[in-house]
């Protein structure tokens, strides 16, 4: 539906983990067309695009981490064990961090091999790294907290209580503030990372899953609300509730901030939101059960 006409702004490529059919959809965001599908076993969920353009994908059911080189189309799998779910890539060092949902630890991949581990809280899910590469955050879902790690030493510098069942975590461009979607308390915790404290709480819809930041706004997927809550980053005032597909989960912004993309787990689509008008301008078909949990958009 109108995908090609509506999606020129934004642009780039989206890598969508389809947990239902063990695949990764490659979507050309300029045309709004799925241009390829790769098979990735183990119920792929987490995804992160690295600074070098490679794409990392977690498979929580098989304990694997797969890396795709889009230039060659080749994939390689690393056996981590446990149940890796959320992941993030250090924008400075290229190190990859995968949260072990079952083992309550953070896997650290350096030089394309499992190099180190750090203990987290219970059921770590989302992972984020500050833009300077110095600090790692994990959302420890079943401990209702964020863990803050020194990226170099892996020392856990702080544990910050947030709302109930934090799942997705995102960090602003300045590296100062984190936004945490709390599945259990239907809100977003706004965290001052340096101060190690929640400075505000933003009510959102039912079962929020993840947060994307674009055009001075926060976009929160409400997985039971079939909607995206939009709030102003400065004032934290609610701006809109946008109807999307069913069970929206992963959410990400285009590099230019003009578009926000939402993976609808039940509907098997990607909703394209105009970040200015706050309207859904296109729906793109992807695989079955898309999660797209992480930084899934490349240039």
């Amino acid at each position, binding site marked *: 539906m109108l995908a090609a006409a509506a999606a020129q702004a934004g642009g780039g490529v989206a890598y969508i983990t389809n947990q239902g059919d063990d695949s990764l959809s490659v979507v050309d965001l300029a045309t709004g067309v799925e241009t390829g599908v790769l098979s990735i076993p183990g*119920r792929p969920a987490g995804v992160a695009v690295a600074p070098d353009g490679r794409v990392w994908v977690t498979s929580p*059911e098989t304990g694997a981490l797969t890396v795709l080189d889009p230039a060659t189309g080749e994939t390689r799998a690393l056996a981590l064990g446990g149940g890796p779910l959320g992941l993030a890539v250090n924008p400075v060092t290229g190190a990859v961090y995968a949260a072990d949902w079952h083992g309550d630890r953070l896997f650290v991949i350096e030089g394309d091999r499992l190099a180190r581990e750090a203990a987290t809280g219970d059921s770590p899910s989302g992972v984020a790294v500050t833009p300077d590469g110095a600090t790692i955050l994990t959302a420890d879902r079943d401990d209702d907290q964020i863990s803050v790690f020194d990226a170099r030493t892996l020392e856990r510098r702080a544990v910050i209580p947030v709302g109930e069942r934090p799942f997705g975590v995102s960090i602003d461009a300045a590296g100062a503030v984190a936004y945490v979607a709390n599945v259990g308390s239907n809100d977003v915790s706004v965290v001052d990372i340096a101060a190690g404290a929640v400075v505000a709480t933003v009510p959102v819809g*039912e079962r929020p899953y993840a947060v994307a930041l674009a055009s001075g706004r926060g976009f929160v997927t409400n997985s039971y609300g079939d909607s995206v809550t939009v709030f102003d980053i400065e004032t934290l005032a609610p701006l809109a509730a946008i109807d999307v597909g069913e069970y929206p989960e992963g959410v990400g912004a285009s590099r230019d901030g003009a578009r926000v993309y939402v993976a609808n*787990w039940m509907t098997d689509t990607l909703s394209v939101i105009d970040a200015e008008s706050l309207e859904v301008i296109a729906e793109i078909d992807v695989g079955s059960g898309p999660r797209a949990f992480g930084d899934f958009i490349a240039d």
Partner: protein
Amino acid sequence: MYNWSLAALAAAALAVAPMAADAHGPSRQKVTETVAVAAAPDAVWARIGNFQDMSWHPAVAQTTGEGGNAIDATRELRLGDPQGPTIDEVLYKYDAAKRTYSYRIEQVELTTLPVSNYSAHLTVKDGPNGGSVIEWRGAFYRGFPNNDPPPELSDEAVVNAVTSVYRLGLDALQAEFGAAN
């Protein structure tokens, strides 16, 4: 697992250790089941659109609850007989105009239904020849939270269990309202 119906479910009895109610597996599952019936959508909705009355499902012996069809209304389903196991549910969406409601399970023993973070949607759509299509969809995780679940608690087993529950209810509605013309 609770024997929802001897005919519909031949699930083995399980010995399941208690687990944290909110823990779950990493991969959400979905089930969609439908049935086409001859009765008009409004008639079907009148039968199944009351959140406080699940008497149309053969496995449900009793429905007790509070809040009617308002958001956050609750109900307790008692299965089988007055001593049967229970499922506690909460209504989180209700749209009579669209003939649909959505609810989630607040509390269920894994021996009754081995799910976690379960939500579901019951909808009556227009069918062919003035009839109806009833759709029941669920989204849930397996209740067993770690890797390598025992076979009876695997994703596949849980999907099969939910599918059987839906089929049991939908087939009963087809018997009640007649197959679509």
